[in-house]
């Protein structure tokens, strides 16, 4: 799974990196500290073993009790001592000596070169200690012991120090690590979070500016002077993109304006001259009827041109509305009155709340409502019904116009607002309309800050809901 928040990702990543570095560092330093402690113990052991070469046949007991001080370990650390003479007799063995089985003494050192003669026992007492005193760790039921052993010609000598004390110290160090590493990680994550937030501030500024660009039109530019150097290029590119967009939008809207002009001029001539001819034709003649039909077709053509122009204006965000307070209830009531004449075969139900006022372009809103009502008539079933409901919900006026109909296939729901779309090809012959009406109606609704939606498919009805912001009382 990928985290969507960039800031969270940065914080977690930094914490992860710092965490693995800290843990690695902790493990290594823990090991080093342990080794250092053990080798210090070894050094003490070594010096004790050297000194043990002195004879103290009767004082092993007291020597044992001094050992803890001389080794520099805490007094309650168990220490054990074993002394064996040259014949293998145990001269002394501590009570807690448990290492019998696995103790090996190093071989006796070679005598000094040049004095190859065997010396009497006393002479050898101060003999050089063995060059190496390998210490080893042994494990018994009482825990781990560090054991140093030495062999002199006349005596074998071993000291074992329990490692408990070192382990205790290491436990303290480990708990310090266990506490400090998460604390540092939290600090790092928090720091990364706030740093990335800082770094993202210009991006947020940019977002705000871009929002105002889409609202106020493409002529806006993002100011590049007050922003960090690193973002200057991004802004430059964005501004260039805006410029290109603005140019092409201007071109497109100029094109639609020009196209409308070019189309409307011949349409005006056609309509004017047809009209003239219609008036001059002999009343009731075939010519006059034909001219009448032609005139109707010209009207239809000009209605399509007008809708196309409005749609292209809406696309360019230039649909200018001359807004005033519009009483939707009155308009709807009038339309319901008309329905009686327009479609006497349909059963009309109404639930229109009084005094629904919206702020909008009266002509365009009437066009939207007429489009919905005429669709409800056109796509109705024989002896079907129309229901017109209007009420206010929060700050929105909801106008729902539903009618009995053939079901609109689910796959067509998203297409129904497309331009020149027809739900059923068979309908094209039976009903008129260019398939621009719904698309335009929705654009008009959206230009008013509302929307036009088709209710989810239901078996025997179609329902469109127009929502418009109401005028604040």
């Amino acid at each position, binding site marked *: 799974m990928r985290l969507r928040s960039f800031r969270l990702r940065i914080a977690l990543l930094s914490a992860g990196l710092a965490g693995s570095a800290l843990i690695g560092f902790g493990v290594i330093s823990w090991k080093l500290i342990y080794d250092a402690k053990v080798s210090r113990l070894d050094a003490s052991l070594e010096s004790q073993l050297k000194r043990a070469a002195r004879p103290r046949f009767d004082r092993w007991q007291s020597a044992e009790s001094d050992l803890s001080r001389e080794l520099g370990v805490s007094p309650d650390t168990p220490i054990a001592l074993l002394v064996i003479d040259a014949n293998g007799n145990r001269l002394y063995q501590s009570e807690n000596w448990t290492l019998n089985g696995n103790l090996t003494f190093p071989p006796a050192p070679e005598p000094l070169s040049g004095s190859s003669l065997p010396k009497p026992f006393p002479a050898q007492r101060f003999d050089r200690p063995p060059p190496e005193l390998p210490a080893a760790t042994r494990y018994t039921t009482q825990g781990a012991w560090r054991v140093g052993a030495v062999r002199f010609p006349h005596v074998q000598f071993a000291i074992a120090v329990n490692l408990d004390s070192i382990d205790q110290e290491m436990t303290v160090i480990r708990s310090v690590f266990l506490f400090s590493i998460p604390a540092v990680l939290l600090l790092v994550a928090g720091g990364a979070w706030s740093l990335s937030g800082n770094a993202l501030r210009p991006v947020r500024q940019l977002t705000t500016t871009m929002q105002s660009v889409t609202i106020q039109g493409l002529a806006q530019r993002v100011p590049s002077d007050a922003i960090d150097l690193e973002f200057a290029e991004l802004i430059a590119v964005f501004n260039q993109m805006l410029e290109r967009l603005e140019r092409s939008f201007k071109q497109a809207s100029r094109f639609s304006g020009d196209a409308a002009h070019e189309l409307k001029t011949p349409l005006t*001539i056609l309509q004017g001259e047809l009209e003239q001819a219609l008036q001059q034709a002999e009343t009731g003649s075939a010519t006059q009827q034909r001219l*009448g039909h032609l005139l*109707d077709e010209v009207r239809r053509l000009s209605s399509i041109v007008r809708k196309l122009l409005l749609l292209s204006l809406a696309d360019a965000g230039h649909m200018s509305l001359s807004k005033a307070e519009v009483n939707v209830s009155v308009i709807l009531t009038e339309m319901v009155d008309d329905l009686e004449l327009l479609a006497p075969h349909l059963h009309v139900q109404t639930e229109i709340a009084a005094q629904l006022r919206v702020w909008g372009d009266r002509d365009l809103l009437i066009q939207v409502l007429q489009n919905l009502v005429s669709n409800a008539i056109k796509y109705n079933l024989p002896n079907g019904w129309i229901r017109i409901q209007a009420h206010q919900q929060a700050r929105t006026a909801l106008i729902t116009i539903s009618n009995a109909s053939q079901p609109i296939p689910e796959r067509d729901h998203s297409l129904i607002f497309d331009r020149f779309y027809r739900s059923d090809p068979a309908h094209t012959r039976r009903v008129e309309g260019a398939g621009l009406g719904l698309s335009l109606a929705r654009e008009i609704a959206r230009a008013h800050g509302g929307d036009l939606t088709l209710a989810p498919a239901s078996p025997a009805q179609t329902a469109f809901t127009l929502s418009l912001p109401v005028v604040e009382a």
Partner: protein
Amino acid sequence: MNVLLVEDEARIADFVRAGLKQQGFVVDYCDNGNDGSDRALENEYDAIVLDIMVPGKDGLAILKSLRRQGRNVPVILLTARNELDDRLEGLNLGADDYIAKPFFVEELVARIHAVVRRSTGDRQNLIAIGPLKLDRITREVTCNRQVVELTSREFNLLEYLMRSPGRVFTRTQILEHVWGYDFNPQTNVVDVCIQRIRKKIDSIGGGASDLESVRGVGYRFRQPTHS
């Protein structure tokens, strides 16, 4: 009535002039904005019909300079480009009305009459043909001095036909004008409405025969034989 028409498209100008002259207007015509501006400032017209898109000074500029000089002559704008913007800008600049191309001359004539009446403060809003009298302000129709009760749509339909007696209107034209529907919703609403008006007029004392149907086309109000 003197009207100045500024329109660069000769064929549009032709039928507009023909239509206006037929209604008894005296039409002065020019095909570019500069001449149009000069003539508008030099002469006194009862109304000016300005195409917004003309070569030279455009319609809005002419309107602006007229208003700047304190000339209150009624102006109607003809617009083809961007209806919504032109409507706003034109009305803000002091146009009295606007009409979008393509338009019917009959509609232009009605608008000219309306703005002239408004500017002269003429309260005469009566159309009287034969026994029928129609008052646009009180929205009252009388037949032989007896009130005919009409619905709003019926009144609008009758007014539409009566303001251009003799002129033939197709059903689609009537539907567009009276109901505002810019399509044919497969309805005989126009015929039903005409029949209702006829019935109401006949019930009072006749004259409904002036409301003629034109076979295969639509309807017209019969032109009075003598005025």
